[in-house]
């Protein structure tokens, strides 16, 4: 019973966070500086999610050759910058990781 209450509270809370600005839109006048921040949301939030995945191994910063995901990720970044193609980027990242693992083994 307690578990279901907890899930409901957490579900409502999560929904409230996601609904917050969507619900408030039109009912308040956000300051100009706030609107200036919004174009940076996708890049800032998604890079924040991605960078630790590439740079950290078990919470430690690893920049050397043993961090295969970092180098595979960098290869994917180059491919994404040049070709701007989603599947090509993902495919080359996985291919780079596979080759690095083969080389390392």
């Amino acid at each position, binding site marked *: 019973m307690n578990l279901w209450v907890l899930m409901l509270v957490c579900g409502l809370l999560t*929904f409230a966070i996601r609904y917050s600005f969507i619900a408030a839109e039109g009912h308040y006048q956000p300051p100009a500086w706030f609107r200036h921040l919004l174009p940076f949301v996708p890049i*800032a939030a998604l890079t924040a*999610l991605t960078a630790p995945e590439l740079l950290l191994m078990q919470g430690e910063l690893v920049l050397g050759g043993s961090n295969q995901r970092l180098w595979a990720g960098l290869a994917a*970044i180059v491919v994404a910058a040049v070709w701007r193609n989603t599947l090509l980027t993902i495919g080359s990242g996985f291919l780079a990781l596979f080759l690095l693992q083969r080389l390392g083994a």
Partner: protein
Amino acid sequence: MKQKQAFYLGLRSVMPLLLGVAPFGVIYGVVALQSGIPPLAAMAMSSIVFAGSAQFLLAQLVGSGAPLLLSAGAVGLVNLRHALYSASVAPMLAHLPRRWKMLLAYLLTDEAYAAAIPHLLVDAPESRSSHAHWILFGSGFGLWAGWQVATLAGVLIGAQLPADLGLDFALPLTFIAIVVPMIASRALLAAALAAGATAVVLAALPYKVGLFIAALAGLAVGAAMTRKAA
């Protein structure tokens, strides 16, 4: 663009992310059962809470018998960054009826937002003829369905599934594919570098608070750069 096309565009865009999300869903199902959560409740949590990392945390907190308020507070902190997505899409959804807004808010996860946002920015935002909501619904629904199936697999088949195939690498790779082509100015590049560096430095902070602070740092640096240029 027609509604159906917009829906399928969103659905297609989220597919590569499903590759990375599915193993997490399976592992969540396994972790939830190990924490003593009954199968039905473990499944229901994927619909009621519907937030990957928050569900992992919640399963662990339930397993360790943490008090309700502390658990809910932790889940709130983990999901704080979703408020940024809410602010980001709010102007595009302003003209919609409330039921649409609530549905899209419920479906607004990292992956659904990431998959949809490049298309939303192209598809004439803030106009009534926009199909932004159908794109977002397509990516949100795709992720939701995939998450339910993956959770079910974890609950039913459990630890027998080889979860560690390295498929989770699809998540950062897809984010790279989404973010890199969007970096069209020095301010956007600076925002990315600031957010990435801050996230790495603050990665050890509990409840993923570092991610939220890192995103804010990226916003601040980006806005400061444009102000200087203007």
